């Protein structure tokens, strides 16, 4: 079997997160957050943040999710809820009931002082409401309006609205932390870190276009939490190291896959509990996951164009920068924008041979329209595509053998297309 040649510094992610979560104990005020929750703004108000989906993904990655889901479901959590929320709520109920046997020490949490959620799917707002009631703490929702009209005028209006919300968030954070003044210098420091981090991530993303790809998209995926919720200098330094490792590989012609024969685009979130299985499976068939939108949509945020500078940051007005970037996010984009940004852009720029769309059973927004996208990829771009029905963190919806059969069939289709193309070329040459 081929080697899984992972980017070495990804081994630092887990200890880095352990350290980050441990550091929350030094804060008097901790926010639990779900969805895009303007994490950049927390530190300047003396608030530390804990990202609930990332924590759930981490628990699932360690195969520790099942007892928490089971416990939650036995206490009234619906099996149809987002599995991130199922793990998180099950986790809380287990802790509140003193069921420490179900919660490993490294996952144990202190209760939050406040909840912040970004309204980007049917779960976030209600999940936050549930947590607010379970902990009896205040909740703040940041709404990101549906960008049904992709014109700059409409996006500008949305950005103004989100900016006004962020002003309110600032007041809310100060009220919760008991601090009198908002530390704008600290916010700008953090924004500068974000800008630096984006620079590295843009390069990382661009380097994936090289054949053979120096990193697997799985390396990117398992490394996304520092960028999404830590957003500090440590996170920026990590992505610098990641980028340098890729540059070194490009220089020496080293690919993440020993013998890269298939370049795959992945759409949707990942089955975190099967990352290792998928990684080995792709390596077994000399296939490489090269790119995808999940977790990286913020990199394309400046595509609002006239709203913010090309690098996405106007440090003179950090709240406007956060707002303008957020209204371009993929979650709230229209179907046509998603098609253009999430499919056409990647498939045409990354020499993609096949596309896998993950349709997570407990994430209905990700699932809806996957069939239409799949057909469109095939019909309009001539690239074979499958919809893989699985889940992000609920192991109930993944069968190893079935997944392998489908991926194998997809790669065989690529072979058949190549053969067909070669035959046509031979015919033309005669």
């Amino acid at each position, binding site marked *: 079997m081929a080697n899984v040649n992972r980017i070495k510094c990804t081994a630092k992610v887990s200890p880095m997160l352990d350290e980050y979560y441990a550091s929350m104990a030094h804060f008097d005020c901790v926010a639990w957050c779900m969805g895009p929750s303007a994490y950049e703004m927390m530190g300047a108000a003396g608030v530390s943040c804990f990202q609930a989906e990332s924590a759930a993904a981490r628990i699932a990655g360690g195969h520790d999710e099942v007892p928490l889901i089971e416990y939650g479901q036995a206490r009234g959590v619906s099996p149809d809820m987002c599995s991130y929320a199922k793990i998180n709520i099950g986790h809380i109920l287990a802790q509140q009931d003193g069921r420490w046997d179900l919660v490993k020490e490294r996952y144990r949490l202190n209760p939050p002082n406040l909840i912040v959620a970004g309204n980007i799917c049917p779960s976030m*707002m209600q999940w936050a409401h549930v947590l607010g009631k379970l902990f009896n703490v205040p909740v703040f929702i940041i709404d990101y*309006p549906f960008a049904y009209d992709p014109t700059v005028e409409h996006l500008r209006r949305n950005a103004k*609205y989100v900016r*006004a919300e962020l002003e309110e968030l600032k007041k809310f954070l100060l009220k919760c932390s008991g601090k009198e003044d908002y530390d704008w210098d600290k916010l700008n420091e953090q924004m500068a870190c974000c800008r630096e981090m984006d620079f590295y991530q843009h390069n990382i993303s661009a380097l994936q276009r090289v054949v053979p790809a120096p990193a697997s998209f799985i390396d990117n995926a398992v490394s996304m939490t520092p960028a999404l919720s830590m957003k500090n200098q440590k996170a920026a330094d990590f992505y610098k190291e990641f980028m340098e490792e890729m540059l070194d590989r490009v220089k020496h012609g080293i690919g993440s896959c020993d013998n890269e024969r298939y370049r795959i685009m992945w759409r949707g979130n990942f089955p975190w509990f099967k990352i290792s299985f998928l990684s080995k499976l792709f390596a077994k068939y000399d296939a490489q996951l090269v790119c995808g939108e999940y977790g990286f949509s913020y990199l394309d945020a400046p595509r609002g164009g006239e709203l913010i500078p090309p690098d996405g940051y106007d440090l003179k007005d950090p709240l406007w920068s956060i707002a303008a970037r957020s209204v371009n996010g993929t979650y709230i984009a*229209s179907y046509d924008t998603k098609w253009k940004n999430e499919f056409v852009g990647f498939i045409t720029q990354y020499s993609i041979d096949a596309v896998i769309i993950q349709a997570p059973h407990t994430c209905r*927004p990700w*699932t809806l329209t996957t*069939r239409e996208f799949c057909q469109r990829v095939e019909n309009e771009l001539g690239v074979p595509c499958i919809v893989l029905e699985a889940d992000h963190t609920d192991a109930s919806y993944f069968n190893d053998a079935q997944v392998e059969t489908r991926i194998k069939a997809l790669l065989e289709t690529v072979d058949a297309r190549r053969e067909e193309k070669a035959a046509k070329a031979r015919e033309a040459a005669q």
Partner: protein
Amino acid sequence: MDLKNCTLEELLQEFKFRAREPAEAANAWKAKTGGKVIGVAGLDVPEPIIHAAGMLPVVLLDRDEAVTLGNAHVEMHQCGYIRSIVDQALKGQLEFCDEILFHDCCHIIRMLGDAMHTFCDKIKKIKFVYFPPMLEYKTSQSYTLDEMYDMRKRMEDIAGVKITDEALAESIKIFNTQKKLLIELYDIRRSHPGILTGVQVSDIVAAGMCMPKEDHIELLRRLLVLLEPEKAKPVSKAFPVVVHGSLCERCDDYVLNNIEATGGVIVDDDLYVGSRYFITTYDESIAPMDALLKAYCERVTPCPTRYTEADPGEYLTDLVKKANAKGIIMVIVKFCESHDYFYFTAHRYFEKAGIPEMLVETEHDSAPEGQLKTRLQGFFETMEG
């Protein structure tokens, strides 16, 4: 129909027909008036704006027939409402709509509306309105008002008329008349348990969501007259319950019928096709656009797709008490994820408040009557004991 001389039974049949065949009624209205029909998906769309433009708003409901064509495009683990709407669209059953207006009442509905043009050429036009869900935030209120003005402009463009404030105020009055008559009907239902069945009430409300309001008002007025002699009859001694749920569609007939067949009587409801449609009235003492905004932001019923700090269990507990009910049946449409969270919180509230409660999950293509009957019998027996 001959409204002056019709019997209660005939009138109830008329409500039923209007409720179950909205396309027929809408097409008849179009032929008569030459007006346009706007299909509305989502409860919070300010229908008076459409009405004031001389058009007919028709709330799109699920259809009581198996989903077939729709399954090719929408997964079985999406809610029945979504699947039914796609199915109806593909079968050409929504062709009577000159435009469909999707309110972002849940992310799934908006995504569906947004993608439907790629696989369905039988829908003429699809448009959106976005009302932020945080009802108590000042920032959302200002965005919502902008969006309502935008919708008003778009409706003017479609209808080719200018919507004056006077016309809008007049439309609001008509909607309020309908709402107040329905509120009166529900008062009678509370004070005379069993005077109408759950399905009959559902048909009465559903008809009002589809047909011209003015016509519905006439039917309601006649209904209230015909109910007068019924009030003298003995009231039902069955267990009084409130039914909540089915938040985007009709509560299935088999659920309502079985509640009544197993020892319960529905004395009030918090159903989409029920009190949720009319319980929030418009304030006629303020400017009409402000009245629409106020109705949205100060809606009476809690909704899992909107955000307020209140515990949903509190409102429902009050409803149970006001109706002198002894328990509540919570009807959740399978895969309505927002409702699952809402239920989780409400259930804990009921436990603390000592309100007997039973959860019923419904699926579009399945009606497990036997199982439901047994569970309901058990529930009522427990209440009796």
